[in-house]
């Protein structure tokens, strides 16, 4: 599984593992959307600490989740991007749509 999901009340945390490109994004998207549709959280946290590669398909993934969450009245938070991912986030201007945070604990 490329995504492990943790649910708490009103929150879904999706921890993505491995590489994010156009090929892998399809399954990652399905995993996340399945939880979001079932739980309809107020906040979707996507954790990138275990992502070893990401291209602009990752931005498309975040934007897509942002749109879904907007419809159900919730927000998206981008957690623990690696330095390489931060570089792409910066180009995208996604920080205007989703808060970028770092948690202390290392996600597993």
């Amino acid at each position, binding site marked *: 599984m490329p995504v492990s999901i943790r649910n708490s009340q009103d929150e879904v945390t999706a921890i993505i593992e491995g*590489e994010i*490109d*156009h*090929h892998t*994004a399809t399954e990652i*998207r399905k995993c996340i959307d399945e939880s979001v549709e079932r739980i309809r959280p107020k906040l979707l946290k996507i954790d990138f600490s275990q992502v070893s*590669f*990401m*291209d*602009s*398909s990752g*931005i*498309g*993934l975040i*934007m*897509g989740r942002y749109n879904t969450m907007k419809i159900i009245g919730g927000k998206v938070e981008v957690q623990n991007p690696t*330095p*390489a991912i931060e*570089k*792409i986030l910066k*180009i*995208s201007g996604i920080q205007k749509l989703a808060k970028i945070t770092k948690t202390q604990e290392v996600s597993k």
Partner: protein
Amino acid sequence: MSVLINETRMTVESRSINEGFSRVAVAAFAAQLDPTVEELSDIKTAVSEAVTNCIVHAYEKQVGKIYITVGIYENQTIRIKIRDRGCGIENVRQAREPLYTTKGGERSGLGFAVMESFMDKVTIRSNVGKGTTVTLTKQICGRCKND
């Protein structure tokens, strides 16, 4: 233009599973320049964008061939040419604009923006109905410089 030191050519089919292969193969060739982890990651990302575009845009629903040429030049420069024989781009200037995409949904329209910011130079030659060639150039400072 400086002297070509080593060159490889690859042909891959426009299947999305080959996105990963293409960037890893180019990175394996680029390793000869002893790049930093960051430089290698930049190259992989830019190649991934260009190859994905061939799969998503150029050939869309068919399976076509993607031609990748990687050259290493004397002044620590790598030049990667990614060519398709797909639909071509009508307005290249518009295509380069950040957030511009002809596909809605999950495409961000940032492919060319990422290539431009991760490489030193990006050139696009395209003919509608004939195909597109994207050339990515980057000078590698590398790990040796820090020794």
